[in-house]
């Protein structure tokens, strides 16, 4: 611009005017750069703001599928021939081939997606028909029972081979986009230019005579245990004469002759009641339990741990009403038992070991839950091989896919037409399909995608009755090595742990931070304040990993050794400070005047030091007097009563009560009386009053404690219980230390922003500095101080490293200050690195993160709104 002006004055008139006119227009570059900046800043700013909200959206988006049931992807129905009486169906885990096994031993296979008929194999039953069938949980080892009292074992399993891409036989015909067949095997195209060849293979063994009288085997169940080299097969049978047998085969391999010899040993179960109509038969993989169910709903549970001498452990009626039992089966893991009734009821029982079991072996079948009921008799069932899902089918052809732990019906499928007793049903090995085949050759095949069957709002936040537990609990136990493990995803203990850590750390931090802030703002010498404040601010950004390290590796062992001294310090420090105050009061006023200010503040340090020393040296004595010489044994409940502890806990409360009563009854009179004394005597009298009040409150506290103890109340089991080295006390202390700077700085800012005119007015009206601080400054700044506490709380809620390192990470639900805890944040840090992307645990952890986000966001927003209000108010003052 300046150059323009020079040009204008320097050049001749006409041109100058021309130039000026031309220059008046802003240069293009400026306009463009202005526009670009405008655009970039607006877009950039909005983007960052969006990104910040995007975090929440993303967390919700990842966590949300936990609450969805899932959906059916494909539904096929077709007819395969020939129709026949079916006793079993099976399919491979890639959902390629389905097989039907008829009672005459024919094994006919078909392509699951299209229904194309594939090869048929024959199990040579020697002309007999199988009348009962039992199978292991993987569905590949079967046992058939026959009319003549014999049993035959068979292996009918899919064989999967991975081949290179060019090994497809020339004669193969296309089935669908993925599969081709050569008539017997199916070839599937898989990524990486490879082929997967699937066939079913069968192997039938010689018959074993089980029923000596040759009575028909009407029910059988079969399990395989032992090692791969020496498998033991166990099976249980009931014959037409009503005799139950539990049998075991042992195969021994002769190294010299390379021959395997199989021996069968049987023992008879205790006699069943006459006329019992055996409906179902079950056995566990360990072969230690056998269940026989009658049509009336009576379940006979046998303890077969002693193979030679099985005994009846318990009888139990699953359907006390008129309904008949139509189904009894194990859930995956064999801990849970499913019973279906003729009225469509589906009940789940666990075998539990309650203290009052009153059965032969101490276990007891307990009804856990009644799942959503079918409207007609339940006749078909299949349990998952991997988790706690199951499928049930009723006579009307309804097929429901459910989950036991979460007690939800995930999918309700319906086939055209009704089912009957011969309709066979199976849940695919990967829980992603259901295959249903009936005697007429009608096939229904549904594939579905149900990624998170085990979670609902109820399982995440509510009490759930898990397998092996005596009652419903809130439990977090996410992973284990085996398939039969029931994951327990309850966020409640974690949220509780978060709250526990927060509460204990605030209990420690709030007094120190707020009292310190009031003192700094109202009474501290300016010069000291100028150094204290920045140091406190700097402590805010102290890495918490350092605090966690100090807490866990240095503090926790020290606190464990000196626990009595630490507890004593909570009383010794305040008491020694107040005692020092009374002594200070009685000092000559000249000395007081000289020491006022910085020296007095230094004296406070000395008093703190003395208090700490008193606690240190008095610790053992304190432990002897109040905790019978061993605090840890006391917390266990091994020795002593709760009385001394109650006395200590009630002491501060009774002191407050005594002080309040004193103030109401004699407060004013006492103060008038105090004025009658001279300046040197009054402090002594006042100190004496304090001591008397202490004594009185001791007496009151003791009486209360004795009364409570006499009433049978023991604090152990509540806020104090068994001592663990990494506990809430240490966490509270160190996390409190971490949030003190936060609360302190914000509270001090709030107190400081109270206009000094208010202070001046109060002091001028004759109030002492203490009265001014307490009754003028603090009420004015109250909302700001409250906001400071809220922000400190927000930080405590989300703190990770300290709790991760010092809290022991046990997800338990108790307020015991001497026990550990697990917070949401520590849980994420521990488990996310191991979680499979997109799995239930992964999404659960995102949900945990979301809950943390929401918790802190609410706390902080409240704090922020209060703070904004306060600022406005402080500004108006």
């Amino acid at each position, binding site marked *: *611009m300046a150059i323009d002006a020079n040009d204008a004055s320097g050049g001749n008139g006409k041109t100058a005017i021309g130039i000026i006119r031309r220059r008046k227009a*802003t240069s293009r570059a*400026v306009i463009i*750069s202005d526009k670009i900046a405008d655009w*970039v*800043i*607006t877009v*950039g700013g909005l*983007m*960052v*703001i969006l990104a*910040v909200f995007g*975090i929440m959206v*993303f*967390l919700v988006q990842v966590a949300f599928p936990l609450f969805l049931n899932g959906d059916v992807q494909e539904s096929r129905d077709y007819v395969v021939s020939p129709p026949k009486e079916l006793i079993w169906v099976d399919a491979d885990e890639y959902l390629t081939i389905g097989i039907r096994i008829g009672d005459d031993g024919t094994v006919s296979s078909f392509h699951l997606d299209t229904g194309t008929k594939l090869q048929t194999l024959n199990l040579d039953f020697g002309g007999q028909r199988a009348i009962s069938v039992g199978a292991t949980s993987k569905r590949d080892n079967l046992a058939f029972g026959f009319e003549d009292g014999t049993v035959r074992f068979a292996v009918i399993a899919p064989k999967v081979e991975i081949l290179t891409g060019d090994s497809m036989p020339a004669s193969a015909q296309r089935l669908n986009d993925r599969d081709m067949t050569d008539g017997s095997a199916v070839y599937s195209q898989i990524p990486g230019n490879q082929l997967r060849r699937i066939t079913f293979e069968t192997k039938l063994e010689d018959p074993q005579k089980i029923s000596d009288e040759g009575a028909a085997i009407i029910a059988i169940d079969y399990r395989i245990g032992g090692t791969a080299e020496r498998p033991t097969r166990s099976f249980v049978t009931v014959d037409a004469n009503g005799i139950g047998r539990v049998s075991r085969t042992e195969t021994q391999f002769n190294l010299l002759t390379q021959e395997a010899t199989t021996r069968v040993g049987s023992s008879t179960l205790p006699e069943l009641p006459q006329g019992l109509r055996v409906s179902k038969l079950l056995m566990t993989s360990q072969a230690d339990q056998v269940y026989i169910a009658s049509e009336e709903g009576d379940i006979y549970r046998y303890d077969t741990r002693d193979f030679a001498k099985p005994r009846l452990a318990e009888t139990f009626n699953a359907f006390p009403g008129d309904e008949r039992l139509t189904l009894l089966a194990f859930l995956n893991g064999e801990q849970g038992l499913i019973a279906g009734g003729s009225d469509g009821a589906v009940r789940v029982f666990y075998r539990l070991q309650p203290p009052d079991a009153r059965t032969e072996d101490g276990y007891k079948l307990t009804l856990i839950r009644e799942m959503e009921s079918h409207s007609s008799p339940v006749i078909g069932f299949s349990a998952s091989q991997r988790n706690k899902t199951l499928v049930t089918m009723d006579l009307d052809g309804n097929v429901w896919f459910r989950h036991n732990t979460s007690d939800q019906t995930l999918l309700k499928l319906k086939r055209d037409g009704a089912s009957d007793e011969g309709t066979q049903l199976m849940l695919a090995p990967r829980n992603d399909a259901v295959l249903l085949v009936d005697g007429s050759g009608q096939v229904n095949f549904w594939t579905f995608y149900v990624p998170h069957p085990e979670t609902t709002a109820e399982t995440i936040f509510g009490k759930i009755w898990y397998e092996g537990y005596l009652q419903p609990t809130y439990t977090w136990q996410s992973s284990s090595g085996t398939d039969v493990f029931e994951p327990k995803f309850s966020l409640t203990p974690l949220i509780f742990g978060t709250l526990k850590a927060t509460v204990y750390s605030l209990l420690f931090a709030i*007094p120190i931070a*707020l009292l*310190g802030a009031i*003192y*700094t703002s109202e*009474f501290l010498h300016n010069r000291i304040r100028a150094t204290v404040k920045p140091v406190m601010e700097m402590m805010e*950004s102290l*890495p*918490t990993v350092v605090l966690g390290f*100090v807490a866990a*590796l240095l503090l926790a062992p020290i606190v464990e*050794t000196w626990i009595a001294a630490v507890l004593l310090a909570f009383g010794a*420090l*305040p008491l020694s*400070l*107040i005692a020092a105050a*009374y002594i200070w*009061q009685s000092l000559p006023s000249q000395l007081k005047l000289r020491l006022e200010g910085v020296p007095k503040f230094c004296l406070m*340090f000395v008093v*703190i030091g003395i208090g700490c020393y008193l606690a240190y040296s008095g610790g*053992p004595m304190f432990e002897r007097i109040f905790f019978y010489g061993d605090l840890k044994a006391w917390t266990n409940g091994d020795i002593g009563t709760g009385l001394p502890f109650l006395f200590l806990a009630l002491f501060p409360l009774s002191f407050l009560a005594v002080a309040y009563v004193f103030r109401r009854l004699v407060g*004013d009179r006492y*103060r*008038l009386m105090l*004025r009658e004394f*001279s*300046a040197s005597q009054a402090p002594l009298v006042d100190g004496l009053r304090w001591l008397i009040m202490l004594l009185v409150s001791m007496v009151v506290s003791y009486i209360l404690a004795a009364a409570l103890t006499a009433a049978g109340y023991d604090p152990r089991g509540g806020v104090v219980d068994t001592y663990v080295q990494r506990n809430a006390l240490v966490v509270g202390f160190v996390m409190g230390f971490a949030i*003190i700077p936060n609360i302190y700085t914000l509270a001090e800012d709030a107190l400081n922003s109270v206009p000094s005119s208010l202070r001046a007015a109060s002091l001028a009206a004759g*109030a002492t500095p203490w009265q001014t601080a*307490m009754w003028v400054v603090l009420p004015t700044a109250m909302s700001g101080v409250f906001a400071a506490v809220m922000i400190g709380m*927000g*930080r405590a809620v*989300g703190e990770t490293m300290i709790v991760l*390192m010092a809290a022991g990470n046990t997800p338990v639900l108790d307020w015991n200050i001497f026990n550990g805890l697990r917070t949401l*944040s520590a849980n*994420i*840090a521990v488990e*996310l690195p191991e979680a499979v992307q997109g799995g239930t645990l992964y999404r659960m*952890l*995102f949900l945990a993160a979301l809950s*943390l986000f929401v918790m*802190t966001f609410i706390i*902080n927003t409240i704090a922020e*709104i209060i703070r*904004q209000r306060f600022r406005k108010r402080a500004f108006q003052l």
Partner: protein
Amino acid sequence: MTATVEKDTIRSEAKPRSVRKYSADISAMGEPFLWGLGGALAFGIILIVGFLALIFWNGFTTFWPKPIEVVTITDGTRVAGEPFRSEQYRPGPEILSGLTDDQRAEIVADEGFVGRTLYRTGNYDVTGEDFRWVSNFQVTDRAYPKDFFFFERQEWGAFVGTIASIDLNGRKLSLEELTLPGLEAEQEAARDRFDEVHHIERTDIGNVNHEINELRLDLRRAALRHGEGSPEYQELQQSNEARIAELQKDYLALANQARAIKEEDRKYRITLQTVNGEEKEIAISQIVRFYAANDLSFFEKVGVYLSRWGEFVSEEPREANTEGGILPAIFGTVVMTMLMVIIVAPFGVITALYLREYAKQGRLVTIVRISVNNLAGVPSIVYGVFGVGFFAYMLGGSIDALFYPERLPSPTFGTGGILWSALTLALLTVPVVIVATEEALSAVPRSMREGSLACGASKWQTIKWIVLPRAMPGVMTGLILAMARGAGEVAPLMLIGVVKLAPELPIDGFFPYVHLERSFMHLGFHIFDVGFQSRNSEAGKPMVFVTTLLLIGLIVLMNSSAIYVRNRLKKKFAGSQF
């Protein structure tokens, strides 16, 4: 209270004498409460100072060579080691029952407490323990023999003991024959050989391996792009095979060279003897540092001290991170923080500019501002979770599928790495920068903006030449605070990219030099890892203290510079509305 005071005054009117006595009402002074307030502050300060003193004391004394104490205990065996720390403990009944009556009486008189000392005895390979507690009542004799040495070894931790003999290429010598300076010279020569082998194995062979790996990946990429039967693929395969054969030859040559040096090195050996007479023969090159702990002058001690510090800040870790240096962690922390600042600075400043200069001030902006403020309070672990899910798995997964298909299924960007860590922390610290910048922007007087606009400057020109320069110190403060917060944050990094031991630094000599996808080491995580995940947390403790000292030093430095800048800013704008 005000009510009571009024009541008092009314009553005092009735008794005129008491007006004089008014000052004697000492409860108005609230002295006990004042002491409570002051005591709380004093306690807080003691905690902070005590904490810092603890860190500083332990951090600074860790490397100072301590004397070796040889303790003869009651059962006749001897324990030699550095006294590590002492404490009071309560022995259990099984220990008490094994004591004499006098000892028991003494313990009872001491409230059941007994003093004990932890000795760092080293010799893990011989005795199976590094540390040993010795209770005071076990000690019958203490001595400080001058012939005891403290050896820091490449493997198996420290060795405390005497030198039995030295074998120099077949020449058997005792220490007297070789003399200490002679041994030192031998050790230095052996270390040189060791370093040379290390250099060949890590750098030279590493280069060869890197190139071979790159060639394989090229081939895989060609296969994915053109198909395995294509002429491009065939051509590349042939040229690659030739090159790989050449490289294999190089590799063999280098490996032979290294083997020859190792062969030579194995001939120089030393036999050490523990205090209880067990002998252990090791190669001299295995000794990183040794000194006669009880025979050191002050300056020699300083020498050992400084050499340990030197190793600490310039070497890689040994012994599962519990010994050696932490150079990779320092490097990782610094690179990550720098990357974070590069990302956070423009976004934070732009957002603040938008909120303060462009957006229409109203209810919406207030809400946004509150939200931004709140985000500073959202737990860092939540950002970590977001980072893993969004950056690593979602963004990184897509990047891998698009640009690095040849490396799949092992992820390149699809897992934690330094870029994702920096982005996550940038998100975490962006509120800090926004708040600080906004504050600085609002401190620029309105009159200056108006003046500039009145002179005909455009909005951007005003911001660029008038507003931003004034606000710069504030922006810097925000950035430094963001750095301090970012450098100290561990929880989110544990989820996204920090590892226990990173074999490769994020910046090295291989194209493209800056490897943003690599995982890295971090000082904060190092503390967590060594303190909690190592075999013996006791052995790691000194290391943790030194690392802590370094980390706190870094953060205090950043914070104090931020405070300094802020104070200058305050002074500069003391006159304007703030």
